[in-house]
């Protein structure tokens, strides 16, 4: 009896894994091929679809690093400064708002909360023209300020929502006990809720990093000065300037640009998948 059911069960399992693995290989193939191509001489990129580099070389990385006006580490640095500032701004401002929504009762709470959810669905492009006008009148165009300052005012409602969901799941008895001990909201927020919310904060920091690092549209319009260029803007200059001739160098620098995102994905994938999953529920 068990033998009869086990045999088809096992072959079905093997078949399923084969399909899942094949699908994964198809998905990752372009990425692996890009990595392989970045260590091939450019002329073979157009001939060799395999992901095993024949005769590897780091020439593309060396030449690509200095192919633009400034060395590539300037762009990495510019991107990193904006990303770190955005993380600081988002964690601070979004957690304050989230604490108020999750733990405090006050007039207008429902309306504000609904407004916050509505901004989740608001496309960036609707706001970009007047925001650009505002920042150009402040003299902030061609500085990183338009990319950083709004983050300190909780404009990324996604993270407020994520943190509200998380704080709501924490037991209220903790705040009650602290309140009886004479703690005000400031101390409950800082001493109790924030330390317990580290998983939500890590998730928010990771997503902020990845989205800021990948962001192209706002960096494109605000950072015209080549000395301020970030990795995405520099790569775009590279691809347009070369007219698509130096694919090896382009790939090498593209991989340098992807590496931090990949690294944070490896280090924090648990936080990313859990954070994403919790936003789908009430």
């Amino acid at each position, binding site marked *: 009896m068990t033998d009869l059911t086990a045999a088809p069960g096992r072959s079905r399992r093997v078949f399923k894994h084969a399909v899942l693995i094949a699908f994964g290989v198809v998905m990752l193939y372009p990425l692996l091929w890009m990595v392989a191509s970045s260590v091939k001489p450019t002329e073979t990129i157009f001939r060799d679809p395999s992901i095993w580099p024949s005769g590897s070389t780091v020439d593309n990385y060396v030449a690509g690093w200095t192919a633009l006006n400034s060395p590539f580490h300037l762009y990495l640095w510019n991107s990193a400064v904006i990303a770190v500032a955005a993380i600081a701004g988002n964690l601070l401002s979004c957690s304050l708002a989230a604490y108020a929504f999750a733990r405090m009762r006050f007039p207008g709470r429902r309306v504000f909360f609904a407004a916050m959810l509505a901004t989740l669905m608001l496309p960036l492009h609707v706001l970009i023209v007047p925001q650009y006008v505002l920042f150009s009148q402040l003299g902030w165009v061609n500085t990183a300020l338009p990319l950083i300052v709004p983050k300190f005012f909780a404009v990324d409602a996604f993270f407020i929502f994520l943190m509200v969901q998380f704080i709501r799941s924490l037991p209220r008895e903790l705040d009650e006990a602290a309140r009886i001990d004479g703690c005000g909201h400031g101390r409950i927020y800082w001493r109790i809720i924030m330390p317990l919310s580290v998983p939500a904060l890590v998730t928010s920091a990771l997503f902020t990093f990845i989205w800021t690092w990948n962001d192209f549209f706002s960096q494109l319009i605000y950072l015209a000065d080549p000395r301020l260029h970030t990795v995405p803007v520099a790569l775009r200059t590279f691809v347009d300037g070369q007219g698509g001739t130096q694919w090896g160098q382009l790939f090498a620098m593209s991989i340098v640009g992807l590496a931090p995102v990949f690294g944070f994905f490896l280090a924090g994938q648990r936080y990313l998948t859990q954070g994403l999953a919790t936003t*789908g529920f009430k």
Partner: protein
Amino acid sequence: MIGRTGTRPVRAPVSWRRRGDRAAYLFLAPWLLGMAVFTLGPILASLYLSFTEYSLVAPPEWLGLENYREMLDDSRLRSALVVTFTYVFVSVPVQLTLALALAVALNSGVRGLRFYRSVYYLPSLLAGSVSIAILWRQVFGGQGLVNQLLDRFGIQGTSWIGHPDYALGTLVVLNAWTFGAPMVIFLAGLRQIPAMYHEAAAVDGAGRVARFFRITLPLLTPIIFFNLVLQVIDAFQSFTQAFVISGGTGGPADSTLLYTLYLYERGFGSFDMGYAAALAWFLLVVIAALTAANFLLAKRWVFYGD
């Protein structure tokens, strides 16, 4: 400590609440300010600008409905709308179907679930980058990876990104490649379905297919709806990939001219800020209408349990 609340049982909660109100607005202050300055203000300002001609150098000049009248006759706007709607209505269903199929496959007690989930999820994090747009430009180019592989089978491919019939298709494929994010959300939803429903149905003789359509799918409709709303809005905002792949033009022959590209071109290419503001407002109305339609239609198919 307990005595303090005990001695003033009536007034204490009231003053606590008042102090609480003030404290709450302090906590909310950054968000409230940001909402006013960076969201509501700009929405109203763009409504005003949409009735003007404005190029940043001179003050805005009142035009009345002129920008909107121009939009009616704007043939490039018409192609941008066709391209954008085609893109949204094709790429989102493809992406969500893949996401659901893979989530269901992974949820049926497969070993190594975490590994597969990571592999499938990774592209979602990378796909928004210029790096991946550059990769796509090569992969679907004339001598790109796809054609090299087709060549092995003796098939002569064309430049997929250079052909007006296929260029948008490469963007649909790129969006399908990011099915991992909605898949993660589906997987979390599938875990919430109690196993006993499936067991009971199996006892009653329901097969796998029947159980999927009668149990899994109805119970998952709220999550499908959530993913649908978010992905539709997300697809409307696509910019980077079309911009980099087409070299900023939306070409060939405007076949990848997404609405956002056209808005960028008018606003930041030729600095027609007034016209761009009108385009942005129209986009806001379209997305609001679609989201509202989504919520209204949801009543017909989304199942919210008991």
